[in-house]
């Protein structure tokens, strides 16, 4: 990374970001927009999960919405049927989603690339159809209403503004955990699998184990996002967790920049807000433009926003310090085909 010596700037940067984030509800004020920010945070967590499997490990998972849904339904059922509070579902929902991830991962992760993609599509659809049709358990089309707002001791997070702080803390923890994972032995194993699975295997990386672990982590993030979502909207129904959300999560990640933690969050936030900004255009218009934008972005920004920022950044460094050591902006690996 260039600009390692810019420590004073960095020391100022983080407190300023922290203040800005803490003051956000006071600045935005509109309840609706705070709600949208909360949604962006929830999506960011789900996309961070996807970043582990797709961005770091290079495996395509088109079922993140299903894991998101499993987390949400776990929280919803435990809360409404058994009266479990927020913190209890918080502890249970991500592992439940991860368990499903392992159940899906074990048999299918021996498949490679495109086959895995197809298997996850099938899994996502089956989960969705079960949520939709198993009336006794999941409420069927009616969904599950009446999920309690998060309560932690004396604090009640029932308004959008208060929920924002709770969600933000979860996002920061999720992001920091991911940074730790990325720079750990495990993270290096993930990247080795992405770069060249055969070479990784030959170098002694247990690729199958790490692929399952990556899958479990991805679905745990999805489960956490779902748990937050259930307690935020206080209502879950199967339509929300349909495959088009899985696809949207992938678009968020690709546009933000696969492999980048900041990129995942920026991508998720952008794709949450853009449809809102386009709302004046009436439903289908917004979605049509959105679809077109995805194609254009894929063509002109192959590494997503993170790659764009990185390459602009390194160009500026080149201009300022022509002899500075350069790391080229990381291009996604060409899939061996």
């Amino acid at each position, binding site marked *: 990374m260039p600009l390692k010596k810019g420590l004073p700037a960095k020391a100022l940067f983080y407190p300023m970001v922290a203040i800005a984030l803490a003051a956000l509800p006071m600045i935005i004020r509109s309840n609706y927009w705070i709600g949208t920010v909360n949604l962006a945070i929830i999506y960011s967590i789900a996309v961070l999960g996807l970043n582990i499997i797709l961005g770091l490990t290079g495996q395509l998972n088109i079922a993140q919405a299903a894991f998101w849904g499993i987390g949400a339904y776990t929280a919803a059922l435990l809360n409404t049927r058994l009266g479990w509070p927020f913190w209890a579902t918080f502890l249970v929902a991500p592992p439940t989603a991860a368990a499903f991830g392992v159940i899906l991962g074990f048999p299918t992760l021996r*498949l490679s690339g495109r086959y895995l993609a197809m298997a996850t599509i099938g899994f996502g659809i089956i989960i969705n159809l079960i949520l939709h049709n198993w009336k006794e358990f999941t409420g069927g089309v009616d969904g599950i209403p009446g999920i309690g707002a998060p309560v932690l001791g004396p604090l009640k997070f029932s308004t959008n503004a208060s929920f924002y702080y709770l969600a933000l803390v979860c996002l920061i923890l999720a992001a920091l955990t991911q940074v730790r994972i990325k720079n750990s032995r495990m993270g290096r194993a993930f990247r080795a699998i992405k770069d060249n699975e055969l070479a990784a295997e030959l170098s002694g990386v247990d690729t199958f184990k790490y692929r399952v672990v990556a899958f479990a982590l991805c679905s745990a993030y999805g489960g956490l996002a779902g748990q937050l979502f259930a307690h935020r909207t206080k209502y879950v129904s199967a339509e929300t967790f349909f495959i088009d959300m899985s696809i949207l999560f992938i678009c968020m990640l*690709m546009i933000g920049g696969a492999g980048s933690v900041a990129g995942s969050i920026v991508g998720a936030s952008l794709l949450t807000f853009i449809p809102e900004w386009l709302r004046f255009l009436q439903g289908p218009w917004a979605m049509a433009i959105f*679809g077109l934008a995805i194609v254009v972005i894929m063509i002109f920004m192959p590494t997503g926003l993170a790659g764009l920022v990185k390459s602009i950044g390194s160009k500026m460094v080149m201009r300022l310090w022509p002899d500075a050591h350069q790391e080229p902006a990381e291009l996604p690996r060409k899939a061996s085909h």
Partner: protein
Amino acid sequence: MFDATTLAQFLVSGLAMGSVYALIALSFALLYKAVGILNFAVGESVMVPAFIVVILLTALKLPFLPAYLMIIAVMVVFGAVFQRTVYHPLRGRPFISVLVSTIGASLFLRNTSLLVFGADPRVSPGLFPVQSVNFFGVFVPPQYLLIITTLIVLVVFQYWLFEKTLLGKKMQATAQDRDMARLLGIPVDRIILITFIYAAILGGIAAILLAPIFYVTSDMGFMFALKAFASSIAGGLGSIPGAIVGGLFIGVVELFCAAYISATYKDVFAFIILIAVLLLRPQGFFGEKVAEKV
């Protein structure tokens, strides 16, 4: 409930639906084989011509033959534009980038169709005046027979195209090894363009066959795309005979499962088959290998 007539009735309906899946799966498999992409907009290449067919036949009151020929012409343009915009600028990039790009195209086409054609489901007039013909006690809608016959004709045509013509050989060579094909003097880019156009025409034919028996909506493509994915996995991803057999298989099994097990979970069976095939025989009925080439 298990008598021969009922079974035959189900079998014919299953084969008809399966033939449609097979056509769409064929379009999907061709592009996978030729350029290694998973085309998520494959359903939209059925939905768009289906709407146009309805417009040509109802609003413009064209006779069937000119309308159908116009659809083929439209799909030639559709395939070419799709290749030039969605695939060509991204060639050589990782398959996930192209996949996301086809997702974008699918969203664009679905919502543009919603704007242009509206949200009301439409149905095109049928080619045949009678609802169904009685074959020894089995009532068969003639449209079903047309669908099954068309599939057979197309399979024969495609066999001839790929095995007996120079163009087909060039298409095969391009699919097998693009660089080698280029070295041999095959205009690879043009062959890929032709493959996209052919895949689009298959979508157009599926649309023509479907429009009289299926409600045409802007969302229909998605469901068909998913069934096509399941079909081509069942048959073996990228295998041409696999796509056809997989499509027929999914069509028939789905119908029998809906009839005898659960109609609510009708759509689940296709995906249970998909996962079961991936677990037991990931290369599908006809595929050769699963590990990615190193």
